[in-house]
C-alpha cells in the first residue's frame, strides 16, 4: 500500500527494500511522512535524480509496519526527528541522517558516501 504522494518511487515492503539494496550499488531512501520536515527532502531527491544517475532514489512510509527495518536500524538509534534518511552502499548502510536536510547536506552525503 502506498502512503506517500511524491514523485519518488515508494518502497512498500522490507523485502522490496532488501532486493533494491542488494541489486544496486548506491541507494538513498527517505523514510518519512507527508510532513513539513520530510517533503523538502523528497523534493531535493527529485531534483537530484538526473544529476546523480549512479544513485537510486526511493521513499518509504514511516508509518508502514514494513519500514521497521529502517526505524530499528542501529544507525538510527537516538533519532527523534523525521525523516530518517538512509544511504546504502553495496547493500550496507553507509550513512543515516535524522530530520530535515538541505540540498548541500544531501549532496555532501551523496558525494562522500555514494560516489
Amino acid at each position, binding site marked *: 500500500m502506498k502512503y506517500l*504522494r511524491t514523485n519518488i518511487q515508494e518502497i512498500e515492503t522490507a523485502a522490496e527494500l532488501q532486493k533494491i539494496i542488494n541489486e544496486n550499488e548506491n541507494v538513498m531512501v527517505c523514510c518519512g*511522512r*507527508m*510532513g*513539513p*520536515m*520530510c*517533503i*523538502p527532502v523528497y*523534493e*531535493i531527491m527529485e*531534483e537530484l535524480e538526473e544529476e546523480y544517475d549512479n544513485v537510486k532514489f526511493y521513499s518509504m512510509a514511516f508509518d508502514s509496519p514494513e519500514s521497521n527495518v529502517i526505524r530499528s536500524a542501529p544507525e538510527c538509534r*537516538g*533519532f*527523534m*526527528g*523525521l525523516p530518517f534518511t538512509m544511504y546504502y552502499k553495496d547493500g550496507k548502510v553507509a550513512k543515516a*541522517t*535524522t*530530520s530535515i536536510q538541505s*540540498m*548541500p547536506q544531501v549532496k555532501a552525503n551523496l558525494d562522500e558516501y555514494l560516489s
Partner: protein
Amino acid sequence: MEKIYDVIILGAGAAGLSAGIYTSRGKLDTLILSEGVTGGQMVLTNEIANYPGVEMIKGYELADIMKRQAKSFGCTLKANVKIVDYRLTEEIKEVELEDGRVFRAKAVILTPGGKPRSLNITGEKEFEGRGISYCATCDADFFRDKRLIVVGGGNSALEEAVTLTHFASQVTIVHQFDHFQAFAYAVEEASRNPKISFIMESELRAYEGNGTLQRVQIEHLKTGELTHLDTDGVFVFIGYIPNTAAFKGLVAMNERSEIVVDETMKTNLPGVFAAGDCVAKRYRQVTTAVSDGTIAALSAIEYIRSK
C-alpha cells in the same frame, strides 16, 4: 543571443507561486528560482483551515496545487538552487547560480519568505533531530511519556505545547518575557492544562547531552541565575526571520530587515518588486502572501508593458 525572461521570481512560497500564476497567465515568460522547498511555509503548516474557498487542506496539498497551476500556465520552476549573486540595478536584471548559470529578466519579484528563528546556542547543531525539533506535527510521537520543553510565547508555542501534552508526560514552556504574546484563548488553554508548567523571564543558554539531548541550561534574565533542567526534548517556536540577508544593500529595508515596498509592491529599484513575508507589514498569512504576490505580479506586468 542569451535568453531574457520577462520576470524572474525569487522564492516559491505562497507569494512567489501566486505571482508566477499571474505573470505566466498574463503571457509573461516567467522563471521562478527557489533556494528552498516549493511551497515555503505552507509546507510547514499541517492543516490550513482559513484559506477562503477551501474548507480544510494540508499545507503541502495547497502548495502542490499552486505549483501545478503556475506550471500549467507555462511558468518554469527551479527549486533548491543556490544563488550566489544578484545584479538588480540595471535595466536587465541578472541572477547568478552557484553552478555558474546566469538568468536574465526585465523585472524581478523578490519573494524569499522567512525561516524559523533558532536560538543559536551551544549544542544546537549536535542535537537537531536528536531532541531538538521545530515541528510538533512531525516529531511529537517520538516523545511519548517524555519530558518536554517548549520555547516561545506566541500562538504557535502555546498551541503546540497543548498538542504536545497528548504525547508527553509534562511540558515546560520557557519564555523570555513575564507575559505572553499569544491570544488570550491560547494562554488560557495552556494555563488550564495540568501537564503544562511555565518558566518566565528566562532563556535557554545551552543544550547538553550524550548522543541525545538530556538537559538544558536556563538563565533567568532578571537575576542572571543559571540552572539546569533535565528534558528529553525541546520544541522551538520563536517566530520567523525574513530571508532578506542576500538583498541587504541592494534594496531598501527597515530596521527589522524587511523590504520596504509601496502599495503596488514596488521597491526602491525600478523593475524590482517584493511580496510576501519578506516585506514590511503587520500581518503574515497565506492569504496576505497570495494578495501581495498578485499585486506584485500585476505591477510587474504593467512595468514591462510600459517599456
